């Protein structure tokens, strides 16, 4: 971990994860009418902890010949959401819950951005020495 990474702390990993989560939630909203579609989501705190420790919760590649199932740039695995009710067509997307989660995720993304902006401002101040 270099100096700049240390300065930024947890925010870049959180930002990455927030953007991935938003795409998973968008897929849920897009599939609100798809029969037998199962809504997914991340277990955010567990995934972020894994991301900070540099481990993934998926299968570990312990041999050079192993092919990784997960994209190197992606962290964590999604899990199926436990619905409070299922529709007749087997779909487990609950629009209101997904929309609430999406908008909450957007706010958290902006929070991480705000932290990053603050850090950048502080670093600039330190570099300029004003």
């Amino acid at each position: 971990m270099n100096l700049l990474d240390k300065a930024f702390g947890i925010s870049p990993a959180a930002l990455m994860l927030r953007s991935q989560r938003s795409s998973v939630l968008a897929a849920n909203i897009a599939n609100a009418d798809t029969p037998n579609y199962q809504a997914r989501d991340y277990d955010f705190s567990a995934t972020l902890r894994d991301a900070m420790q540099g481990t993934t919760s998926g299968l570990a590649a312990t041999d050079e010949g192993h092919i990784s199932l997960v994209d190197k740039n992606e962290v964590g695995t999604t899990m199926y959401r436990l619905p409070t009710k299922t529709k007749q067509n087997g779909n487990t997307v609950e629009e209101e819950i997904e929309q609430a989660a999406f908008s909450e995720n957007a706010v958290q993304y902006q929070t991480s951005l705000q932290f990053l902006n603050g850090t950048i401002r502080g670093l600039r101040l330190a570099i300029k020495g004003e």
Partner: protein
Amino acid sequence: MSGLTGIYRIAGTALNAQSRSLDMIAQNMANSQVVTGSEETAYRAKRPIFAPLLEQASLASGETSGVQITSMAESQANVERQRMPEHPLADSEGYIYLANVNMVEEMTNMVQATRSYQANVEVMNTSKDLLMRTLALGN
């Protein structure tokens, strides 16, 4: 592809699917008064069949990205017949066959499709907002 830029495509496929669904609903409502001379040729309400759109790269992890309409199903509701011997399309027994379109059902489907469309537009707007803020990072 994941992340915020991927959302445009996800929401885009959903907008496309929902607008096609609205198309079918409009077609059903427009044809609700169609009358034919036999049960086989009677107009039957069309329904979209949605399926998740899987991306090649994400097939391994089972991630879905978007939605598509794979096929179109016809409503299985009974075709009503009416005895109208004087009608020019009446069959040899004097019956005409009405479309099996249920207007109430079509209206509720329309409201649902419209709401799904709106939800996806909202998703797109929010992602755009977040992306613009990310671009302005450090300014």
